[in-house]
């Protein structure tokens, strides 16, 4: 069994460091927001996790397409890793959003376009994982997984659009401010720094976790192979 590559070890350290710095920036460095107070600090991690969750979602769909073309199982391992890590971050995003929404919108949950879309994406990921569990042949599992992530990748943006027809109260912090959005705020430059760093930090963590998951997949495959050899 090959040992952990040096780059991955280094990346582990960088991830931890980035998270520590990002936490400092979010909780101490960034100034307190005038209207909402300290609860606004959730925002930095919320944006960071949402970003990587979306990144994972897109990467999963893309690697699904690549798998169907190349039929190389390494793309399947990557797809599964991206889905699992992304599912985790979607969950964290939704939880953080909920905690923030309680004081900001006075409710834990609202059927807002971003919230609902995130929840639907999460459900697609859960369905994906259940689908994989129901198939034993690794090649077929990879094929069905790829088809499903591809369908999901096409469907979720449409879901987003459809829900847009319903009113949204989610604040658009970057870009145009919608008049109906509640809980929006103007960002000071220190806030921008904290947010951008959070995005960077979570991207590093994401890459690190996906890498670990891919390696785990490789090991699991090896174990299966050894088991098979032993049984012959």
């Amino acid at each position, binding site marked *: 069994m090959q040992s952990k590559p040096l780059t991955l070890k280094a990346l582990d350290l960088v991830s931890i460091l980035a998270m520590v710095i990002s936490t400092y920036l979010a909780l101490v460095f960034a100034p307190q927001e005038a209207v909402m107070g300290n609860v606004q600090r959730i925002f930095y991690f919320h944006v960071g996790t949402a970003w990587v969750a979306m990144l994972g979602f897109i990467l999963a769909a893309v690697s699904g397409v690549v798998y169907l073309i190349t039929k190389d199982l390494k793309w399947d391992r990557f797809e599964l890793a991206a889905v699992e890590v992304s599912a985790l971050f979607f969950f964290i995003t939704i939880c953080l959003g909920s905690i923030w929404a309680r004081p900001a919108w006075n409710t834990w949950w609202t059927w807002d376009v971003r919230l609902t879309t995130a929840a639907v994406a999460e459900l697609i990921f859960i369905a994906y994982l259940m689908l994989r569990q129901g198939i034993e042949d*690794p090649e077929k599992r990879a094929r069905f997984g790829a088809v499903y992530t591809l369908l999901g990748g096409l469907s979720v943006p449409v879901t987003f659009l459809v829900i847009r027809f319903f009113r949204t109260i989610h604040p658009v912090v970057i870009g145009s401010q919608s008049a109906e959005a509640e809980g929006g705020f103007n960002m000071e430059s220190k806030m921008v720094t904290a947010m951008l760093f959070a995005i960077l930090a979570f991207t590093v963590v994401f890459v690190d976790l996906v890498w670990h998951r891919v390696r785990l997949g490789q090991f699991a495959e090896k174990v299966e192979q050894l088991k098979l050899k032993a049984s012959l």
Partner: protein
Amino acid sequence: MIETRKLVKRFGFKVVLRGVDFKAQPGEFVALLGPNGAGKTTFLRILASLARPTLGEVIVANHHLPAEASKVRAKLGVVSHLPLLYPDLTAEENLLFYARMYGMHQPQARLAEALKMIGLEKRRRDLVGAFSRGMQQRLAIGRAILHNPEVLLFDEPYTGLDQDASEMLDQTLHSIAATGRTVVMTSHDLARAENLATRFDVLSRGVIVASASRQDLEKSDLLKFYKQALAS
């Protein structure tokens, strides 16, 4: 004509066929013998264009698989242990459906011919759901020969048949074998294979370990040949 060169089939990391070299000429009736799990069904499914080879060359009826699958399919008839028939349609309707799927222009004459051959003329308007296992299997043969294929593949056609039905099937297969087609039949029932085949190949652990023509074998020597092949 059927030919495979160094045919390998992997399911994930399980290697089912490890380099099968096989050849069958028109007029030959090859019985593919071997224990359960030897890869007989997988081999037949690859010849039938239902599974893709992992490596190696496959030529069926002068066309390569999987590249020219559609051309192969037009010249191919398959009987498996499942009937591949719809219970809510009559015998005639089932055949007519498959005739349409093979693009036959004047299916009625051919249909009558096939029904006569399998001895089901009188039951043509009965629902297949009400047929006995033996009758269903005969109708399955009728379905397979409907489009007058060059190559016929039988995957354990005797599964679940009683003595009478097996004898009926013997007769039907005999008359088919006499028509100059290339026939491959998998079976673990040596006695049945002995009656029909002109050549016996033994598949074990994913390779063909022995091959003998009917002339090579003394009468009732098949069992000895088979056991020797597996022991080597």
